[in-house]
């Protein structure tokens, strides 16, 4: 069965500083991996996704993520955060079948301080 762990429930970062959010997954085959962002009161917006190929993927809003098979990780990074990056971030692993069920992590709440 798939599972996703986001070890950090809450992260506080200063504006302009770098950000890294951790995600570890468990999946029997090659996973489809996603990062989503949820601003307060909103639905989930896709930041980026990984299926195969280059292990460093670029997403929207200046985010990137690196897939490391040996560590079963898919960490999200941003070199310099903006106040608008304050949100909740979810990592998800998707099944490679026609149903396309996803397993989500518990989320990481990011607070950006001036």
């Amino acid at each position, binding site marked *: 069965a798939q599972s996703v762990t986001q070890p950090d429930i809450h992260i506080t970062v200063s504006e302009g500083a770098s950000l890294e959010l951790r995600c570890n997954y468990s999946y029997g085959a090659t996973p489809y991996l996603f990062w989503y962002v949820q601003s307060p*009161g909103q639905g*989930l917006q*896709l930041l980026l996704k990984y299926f195969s190929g280059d292990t460093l993927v670029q997403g929207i809003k200046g985010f990137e993520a690196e897939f490391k098979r040996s560590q079963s990780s898919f960490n999200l990074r941003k070199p310099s955060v903006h106040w608008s990056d304050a949100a909740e971030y979810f990592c998800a692993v998707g099944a490679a079948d026609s149903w396309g069920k996803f397993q989500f992590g518990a989320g990481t709440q990011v607070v950006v301080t001036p």
Partner: protein
Amino acid sequence: DVKVTQSSRYLVKRTGEKVFLECVQDMDHENMFWYRQDPGLGLRLIYFSYDVKMKEKGDIPEGYSVSREKKERFSLILESASTNQTSMYLCASRKRLAGRETQYFGPGTRLLVL
């Protein structure tokens, strides 16, 4: 542009009431999903549907039922609402046989059961 809409952003109901949450997508997607989102637990799958009139239980189906009479509409039903069903409910859709595709999310319905 991709669009998933949910009938209400906020809903207040009393214990024992029957509650309907509606979700509509305009992308001709076969697969639709209902999640509930709770702090520290991430998104948990309640039910999903892979075609009209077809449904499958997710991870936490107890206390819920669903209806899919038309391809674009997927309804979540709380037969007798209870206070532990107070939560944020998110609907998503996805094209079948598109293993690398993301799920598209609606804005969510925040339900309070008194």
